């Protein structure tokens, strides 16, 4: 495909999105419902990733270092 400008390319991308999701055949109000639901879900996922992923990673690292990292030597003595 040859595109004259970015606008045309974006229009084509939107057309592909319509075709692949199947909402090409829907009526305009249904299209807007679908789009708003999809975009709000994506926005929420992105927002929650931004907020929570660093916390999760820090907690996970702490947790795993505690689990596998510093094993106190006293356990060995206890066992023997």
């Amino acid at each position, binding site marked *: *495909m040859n595109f004259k400008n970015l606008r045309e390319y974006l229009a*084509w991308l939107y*057309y*592909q999105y*319509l*075709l*692949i*999701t*199947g*909402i*090409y*055949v*829907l*009526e305009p109000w*249904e299209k807007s419902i*679908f789009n708003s639901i999809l975009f709000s879900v994506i926005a929420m*996922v992105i927002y*929650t*990733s931004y907020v*929570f*992923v660093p916390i*999760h990673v820090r*907690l*996970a690292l702490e*947790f795993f270092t505690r*689990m596998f990292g510093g094993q106190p030597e006293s356990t060995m003595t206890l066992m023997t």
Partner: protein
Amino acid sequence: MFEMTIFLYLFFFCQHFTMLLLLLYICATKLFGFIFKCIGLKRKTAEEYDKGSIIKNPNVPHNPSLYKKPFVESFEETPLMVAVLTYMGYGILTIFGYLRDFLRQWNIEKRHIARERDEQKDFVPLYQDFENFYNRNLYIRIRDNWNRPVCSVPGPKMDLIERSTPNYNWTFEYTGRVLKDVLNLGSYNYLGFAENKGPCADAAIEATQAYGVGVGSTRCEMGNLDIHEELEQLVARFLGVESSMAFGMGFATNSMNIPALTGKGCLILSDELNHASLVLGARLSSSTIRVFKHNNMQSLEKLLRDAIVHGQPRTHRPWKKILIVVEGIYSMEGSIVRLPEIIALKKHYKAYLYLDEAHSIGALGPNGKGVVDYFGLDPKDVDIMMGTFTKSFGAAGGYIGGKKELIDYLRCHSHSAVYATSMSPPVAQQIITSMKIIMGEDGTTLGADRLRQLHENTTYFRRKLHDMGLIIYGNEDSPVIPMMLYMPAKIGAFGRQMLKKNIGIVGVGFPATPIIESRARFCVSAAHTREMLNTALDAINEVGDLLQLKYSRRERPLPSLGWMSDESLLKD
């Protein structure tokens, strides 16, 4: 406690990590693709993919010695990603379908369709099954691509009446304009006999003046005219069989003659993709029906063996008759029946063979005599030769050919011979004239030219579509060319975009095909000129790029080699 914590961590990470993984996957595929490109590694070759397609379509000719020429048939596998996206599309549309049904249920939205009356509200619901749901919520939305009114001869070009819809395809209005000269890629006009001038039309006019348009009586009573006798003798000569019989309706030829041939205690072995008329006939006959996989000889042989070994269920008496029912060209797949193998099986297991040549008669074979001629076989090996006059001959009706005893039996036992009105004389005359042209009995080579033209057009069109990277199903000699679209929205989009370019095509969706294998079906005709085909191919190429239809993963020649030039075709 530890397990619990791990579980919670995993649970919270799930959502974010799926996204991350998806992004990583996309990046990785792009990166590896780029690296492979750089170091010159190729993707799978055509042979590897052919091997892949055999898995889906396990009917490799296991007895190639029976064929006089190569039998090339391909059903490329659906790419996995496309299949997933197609299901997703259907999922989304189904959800919206439920939403709309809900709105209609509570009278929030106006109902345009039939529904139960209030008095019926405690009765069994009438419109709740899947077919009704599909029609209401999926088919209606793209309905403008079907049932377009034609207002001219459906030859290579036709005129369509323009329609518009005020309420998203629930009702249509005529705008009063006519779309002129729409290129017709949908009619089964294989030999181009759908004309309103020329020798056939002249002969039909003469026949109308001599006989009128019909006598309104059956063949057994007063409806038997000399033109019918002439037609039947000609058909028998054309097919190379002892005797034949013509009927006024092609569908009824199948659905009313199979019950006359088989009954209780008989077994019908039917191909899974047989036409509705054959299925109806088989069901009406009250015989046992067993279905074998499409064109799959192993499956057929297994059914035959089982039938002979075990006999009828419970009583274990041998079957009275075993009838194999197949079609010449399957109109949805574009595949040709493996007739040499079926005849070998039929002879070996002493079964009967019913061959429906609806699409293949006139369209296949060096002399246009159908699939028997195509494989160079003896027509006497096929017990019941059925076919229609609707397609290649540009007329209407059907025939049955075979041994004289068989035809004499059918004459007095077939419902469509005893009860149906005899064929209209102008129609019979159209068939006689066109058949004589095909046989070369009119003293010209027009028929041979048309057959050659059809074959050339088929090869050309198939080759070009294949080179564009579209997925084409079927045998390379079949003039029915299904092109895969897969996604539900693309059926509608393809039909509309092609009509914008003044080309009429036929889209085929769910009830006629498996749900993800939606397709567009082109029917090539001898009346199409090379320019028409090139116009169509240009348009398909353009729309194919726009809609991303080039799914094929086979190796294809680079565009710089000039896929549009005729030289590249002639060279190889």
